[in-house]
């Protein structure tokens, strides 16, 4: 059920507002931070609660706003953990229990994309959200998302070799 209104003033209303997107928030945090995603999504909840009055339904959906908060916190989390060497690229993107053929290749090469490309690829492919909503999360135009995706795919083709076109 999509919730489009304001976050609500009290915690119960806020929880109800967040609940439909809670899984997506965790998925994005896990995608961008690996195991450290739990901390990132909790920081995002704190930030979302503090900033809830800044949500503007005219500028995007609740999901895009919440995912933008998660992306911001994930960026900060990665920067913090890299500074203290608590995170490596091996922590990010690996899918436990998946078959090795495609996933290993992709988890390796996805690390070589730019941070913006990884965010856009994560949102569009791994969270399966639309280009328009991806643009709201990233804070850019639809055209920029499309070109970022195109650049990312082109880069992946080079990195993956001739088997991929």
């Amino acid at each position, binding site marked *: 059920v999509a919730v489009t209104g304001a976050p609500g003033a009290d*915690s119960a209303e*806020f*929880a109800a507002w*967040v*609940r439909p997107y*809670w*899984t997506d928030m*965790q*998925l994005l945090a*896990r*995608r961008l931070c690996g*195991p450290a995603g*739990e*901390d990132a*999504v*909790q*920081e995002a*909840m*704190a930030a979302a*609660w*503090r900033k809830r009055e800044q949500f503007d339904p005219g500028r995007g959906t609740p999901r895009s706003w919440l995912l933008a908060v998660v992306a911001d916190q994930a960026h900060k989390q990665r920067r*913090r953990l890299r500074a203290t060497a608590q995170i490596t690229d091996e922590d990010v993107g690996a*899918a*436990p*229990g*998946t*078959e090795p053929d*495609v*996933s290993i*290749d*992709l988890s390796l090469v996805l690390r070589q994309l730019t941070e913006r490309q990884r965010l856009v*690829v994560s949102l569009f*492919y*791994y969270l*399966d959200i639309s280009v328009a909503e991806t643009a709201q999360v990233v804070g850019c135009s639809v055209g920029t998302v499309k070109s970022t995706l195109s650049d990312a*795919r082109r880069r*992946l*083709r080079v990195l*993956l070799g001739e*088997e*991929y*076109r």
Partner: protein
Amino acid sequence: MDVDDALRMDADRWRAAQKLELELDLDSTLETVLAAPHRSRRRGLAVVAAAAAVVVASGGVALVANRVDTRAPRPAATKVSAPTTHSTTPPTPVVSSSSAPARLPTLGPPPPGQQTLLRSSGHDNQTWNIKRATGRGEIYVACLGGGMIKFEMPGHGGFDVDCTGIATGASLPSLGRTVRIRQVTGQHWQIAVFGR
């Protein structure tokens, strides 16, 4: 294979695998966040780091978990003092239960000089973030009704607390981490963190 197809295939498998692993409970997380909504992680870590040396020795935070099987009739009223085995100045939270069979008991007020940093309740194996509320004292775990509570910290192992009888004190081996509470024998737990 087309890169677009490869990404979609990988994403499908990743989502399926991840959704089984997602463990954070929204209500518990929100409750934790609301317990210290203005405390940034950076400041929190600084507080934790500065307090870490003092924490274990000084005491002051009580973490009380109360195990209750809501399906079974409960005693009419219970009053329990906090653990006293691990601190020279043990906290004295009061745990009381009402006689209403369908409700969890209500944890009492914090000991004198302390405040409630966090209250939460939940069910088995929920993940609960302790980092915002702790860092200012030795942590005690107590529960009523017996049984074991497992505390697990991803990447840092965990420990069991035997709550047979009244209460057992235990200090968490690390602060500032996400803690997974696994109530092994019960169906519900209720938890409170008291501190200065």
